[in-house]
């Protein structure tokens, strides 16, 4: 506490529970089964993660489409010192991953060990958690495909 002025620690905590609706509900349901699904727009693009509407046209999107658990890194940023809230405790990369069969990119993390292994255009594969509940963190991370 400073001598002349008061200060206090203040914690803001909300246990939000969110209804996700049928489009994201199906996406999360597939994640729980260890699969990734997107949604097709009326113009034929596949959005992953799926959206209820086409961000380009505003039109409602159509049927779900299965996409691969592998894809290409379109952008990445290397975190040497992860924050406590980050998905991985070891150094990792944030990445936009365009999955095979998708036209948009998903934001997630790549567990590559060191920055030198990261490259735009590299191929990665989703690593799913063993215990899945139907949420985005059911994908633990992506890892370089060459690791397999």
């Amino acid at each position, binding site marked *: 506490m400073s001598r002349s*002025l*008061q200060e206090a620690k203040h914690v*803001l*905590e909300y246990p*939000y529970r*969110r209804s*996700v609706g049928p489009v994201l509900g199906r996406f999360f349901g597939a994640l*729980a089964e260890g699969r990734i699904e997107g949604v097709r727009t009326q113009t034929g693009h596949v959005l992953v993660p799926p959206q209820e509407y086409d961000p380009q046209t505003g039109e409602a999107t159509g049927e779900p489409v299965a996409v691969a658990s592998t894809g290409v890194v379109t952008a990445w940023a290397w975190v040497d010192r992860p924050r406590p809230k980050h998905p991985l405790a070891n150094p990792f990369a944030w990445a936009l991953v365009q999955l095979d069969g998708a036209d948009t990119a998903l934001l997630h993390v790549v567990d590559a060990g060191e920055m030198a292994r990261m490259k735009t255009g590299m191929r990665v594969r989703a690593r799913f958690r063993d215990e899945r509940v139907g949420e985005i963190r059911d994908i633990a991370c992506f890892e370089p495909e060459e690791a397999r």
Partner: protein
Amino acid sequence: MTEIVKSITTPIRLEYVYRPGRATSRFLRGLAEGRILGQRCPVTGKVYVPPRGASPTHGVPTEEEVEVRDTGTVTTFCIVRIPSEGLSIPPPFVAAHILLDGADIPFFALIHECPFDQVRMGMRVKAVWVSKEELAPTFESIRYFKPLDEPDAPFESYREHL
């Protein structure tokens, strides 16, 4: 057949260092000395407590410090019977607005040592403080208010503060 997920939990937790500013800091330090400090609006002469450093009606700094008494008048009250998370005291209890003697704005506090059916508007009350050793720069230095053995204040004396 894929099961459709209905909802997800997305808890958030953020930590802050709260700094209440000059006026409220002085007020909190006053509580640690067993005193209640307000500030006077230079335009209207009204005394605000707890002070926030600003006249809430005129947007000018309130620089003159005024000590108000720890006795006052209940302007309005309610009896809380519904428990809620984060509430440190178990219901039922009486929460009241108290116009402290010397202040021009009611002060939020609890009332104890009084049967619920005897709490009333105009009732005169006095602060019950924690022990001297326990005084600290926090609202919790005032445990609650209890009835004073005094006639009720006339309605006219607090009608402007409801």
